[in-house]
Each structure stands twice: as structure tokens, then as C-alpha cells.
């Protein structure tokens, strides 16, 4: 322990240093009793703790008491430094773009339907990615055998692609005119987006 013959002020300064170190290194917030046991009882520790808390208040680390236990924590207003968000721009996989397109044109649509239209199985990961992007949402269950989950697009989807509504999606004729369709689609595959739906 610190030398007992130090003048009072130095003694106090030493106790403050000990308090800092003890609370800093502790595995969990400490009660006054626990702190006193480590520091070796001397002086009004509570008073010193409050002084210490005041001296730390303007700093990036604060000494706080919560339910009679003391601990250091980072100042609340600095949280954004500790969890800074960084945007990462990602590209959707081809499978994801296709799935999204099918959902947009055919919503509400079930996974088996998407698979039928795309001609390949749709992985759960693909749907997860579109969910994460915030572009699709589950849209209830289809009242058919097996009650499959339906999917639909979200307002965020419309916002991302600058669409006022789904009706702004170009029809098949537009796609063809834009050279996005090589062939006339078979008659039996009608677009569910025509004027009838509008």
C-alpha cells in the first residue's frame, strides 16, 4: 500500500490513481465494498469516486455508478465511433436479379412458381440476399395445397429503381422493343401486368 507518511493531498492523489486502476481492470462493475477491499480502506472513498467521476465527465471515457456499482464506459455520444457503419456496395448475383425480376413482374409469387418461371431451383440464399437488400418481403401464404409462402416487392424496391408503382414496369412489348427479348414469348405465358390489372 502507499506510504503512510505522505502528505494528505498526495495520499488522496494516490488513492484516486488506485481507484482508477481497480475499476478499469475489474471484470465487472464493482460495489463500494469491493473497491474498498482492493484499495485498502482509507478516506471517504465515495467522495473520491464522485470527484473522479466529475473529472472524467468531459472525457471520452466516463466513470459511472449504476445500481451501486462503479465502472468505466465510453461516453454515450461517441458510440458512432465504436460502431461506425461502412457501406459496402455489392452486386447482386445473376440468380438474385432474375429472382427479383420474376417477383416484381409476378407478385405475389411463391418459390415453386419462381422456379417454374426461371426453369431452375431458387436457393434460400438468393431470397435471403433480396430480403437483406430490403427489396422483397413475405406476402402471406397462398391458399393452395401446401400453403406456400408468397413474396412481393417492397416500397424500398420501387424507390431503388425509381418506380412510382409496379405499373411503371415496362410490359413485354416494351421489353421487346428495347431488344431485351429475343423472341416472341409463347402465347400461353401471359403477363400478369397488362391493362386488365391496372
Amino acid at each position, binding site marked *: 500500500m502507499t506510504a503512510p507518511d505522505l502528505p494528505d493531498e498526495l495520499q488522496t492523489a494516490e488513492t484516486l490513481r488506485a481507484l482508477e486502476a481497480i475499476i*478499469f481492470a475489474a471484470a465487472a462493475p464493482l460495489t463500494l465494498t469491493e473497491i474498498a477491499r482492493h484499495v485498502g480502506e482509507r478516506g471517504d472513498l465515495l467522495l473520491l469516486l464522485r470527484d473522479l467521476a466529475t473529472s472524467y465527465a468531459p472525457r471520452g471515457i466516463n466513470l459511472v455508478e449504476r445500481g451501486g456499482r462503479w465502472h468505466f464506459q465510453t461516453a454515450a455520444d461517441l458510440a458512432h465511433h465504436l460502431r461506425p457503419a461502412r457501406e459496402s456496395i455489392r452486386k447482386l448475383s445473376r440468380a438474385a436479379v*432474375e429472382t427479383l425480376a420474376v417477383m416484381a413482374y409476378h407478385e405475389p409469387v411463391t418459390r415453386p412458381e419462381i422456379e417454374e418461371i426461371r426453369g431452375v431451383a431458387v436457393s434460400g440464399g438468393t431470397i435471403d440476399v433480396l430480403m437483406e437488400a430490403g427489396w422483397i418481403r413475405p406476402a402471406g401464404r397462398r391458399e393452395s395445397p401446401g400453403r406456400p409462402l408468397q413474396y412481393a416487392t417492397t416500397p424500398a424496391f420501387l424507390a431503388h429503381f425509381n418506380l412510382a408503382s409496379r405499373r411503371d414496369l415496362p410490359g*413485354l412489348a416494351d421489353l421487346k422493343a428495347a431488344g431485351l427479348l429475343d423472341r416472341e414469348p409463347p402465347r400461353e405465358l401471359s403477363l400478369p401486368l397488362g391493362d386488365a390489372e391496372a
Partner: protein
Amino acid sequence: MSDDGFDDGPPRAAAPTLVLQLGSWEGPLDLLLTLARGQKVDLAQISILALVDQYLGFIRDAKTLSLELAADYLVMAAWLAYLKSALLLPADPEAEPDPQDMALRLQFQLQRLDAMRAAGARLLARPQHGRDSFTRAAPEGLKLETIARYDTSFFELLSAYGAIRARHSQSTHIVRRRPVMALDEAIERLEQLLGASIDWTELSRFLPHDLADSGYARSVLASTFVAALELTRLGKASLSQGAAFAPILMRARP
């Protein structure tokens, strides 16, 4: 090794202690360093010849007590004995290696080992983290949160949909049977037409006449030609051609 002529080395009384501690030496260099430190605190001041004598004396005592000595202690003893004799001989400028250099090297090694020992001790005397200083026991940790932003253009979305629809129409197209005459069909047909005719007939006469689809006509021509070759191979027909590019003639083989 040494003889009685060099018997005025270390004090006898010290020997048993050293012998008892033999197991604790970390090799001959360690033993030499301990002997040297016993001689002088400043290793720059030690007498190499005296050190050699001390070492050789120590080894001799150990042998007297029938202690097993590790081979490297004996190798060092032999080396030191050689060094000593070389140092005591009149200086020979041709001597290789130079005994002065050898002795210098030994002294350097002792000083260096001693320095490293001292450095290790000074390191350990420093405040050590986990004993004298501590970090926080349970820091929250920092995290860079990554918010994924998907950059997909409207064009990509539309062309993806276009591709799906295109795939659809293509696949229905592929499923339709293409107009071809299969080889089996051609063989059967040619065999029938040929019948038992033993007159030479131009192969082209066996082709159907009214084929509007040129793709199908090509397929029929190819299949019929291969069918003719096949029937000939089977010995059911004979083929004849007068010259290159001349009409191919065919007849049944009796």
C-alpha cells in the same frame, strides 16, 4: 589433457560443490562462464589461461569422482587443452587458426552469453503485463459494421427478366422434333425400294422428289447415302461409281 604440471588451478575445496551442481550447467560454455565470473566480475579482465586450467581441473575432478560427463564437456576440454598449448608455444604467424583469435573468440562468446543472461534478467525485472499492469478484463470491443448496399440497375433487372422469357420460348422451340430422316428409317426405306433389283440404278433415283423443306431434303440425302454404304457393308447391295463425281449406281446383291 592436463597433467600435474598445471595442478595449481582452482581451490580444491570448491570442487565438490561444483560436481554436485554439474547437472545444472547448461553446457560447457555455461560452466566456463561461471568459472570466469568466479575469477573476475569484469569478463574483459579475466585470464584465459587461468580459465582453461580451471575448466580442465574441474573436468579432471569430475572424472576422479567417476561422474558421467556429457560428451560436449569433454570436447570443450580437448579444445581448451589444444588452445592452451597453442597459446604457450612460441608465436607462429603461420598457425591456422590463430590461437590468439581462438582465445579472443572464446572471450567474446563468454561476454556475449553473459550479456544475454543479464539482458534476460533485466527483461524479467521490468513491469510485466498481466503481473504489474493490466488491461480491461472485458472490453466491449470495436466493430466495423458493414451495411450492404446492393447496386443493381433497372436495366439489369429488366434484361434479367427478358432473359428468363427468352429462355422460355427457346426451350419450347428446342422441344419440337426437328425434321430429319434417321439412319434406321433411311436403311429400311432404301432396302424396301431396292428390293431384289439387280439392275444398276442411280442412287439419286431412290430419293423422294417432292421435298419442300430443304433442311429435310439434306437430311434425307445424307441418311440415304449412309444407308447405301451400310447395306453394301452388310452384303445386301453393291455400289459403283465410274469416276469422281460421276453418278453413284446401286443394285441389290443376289
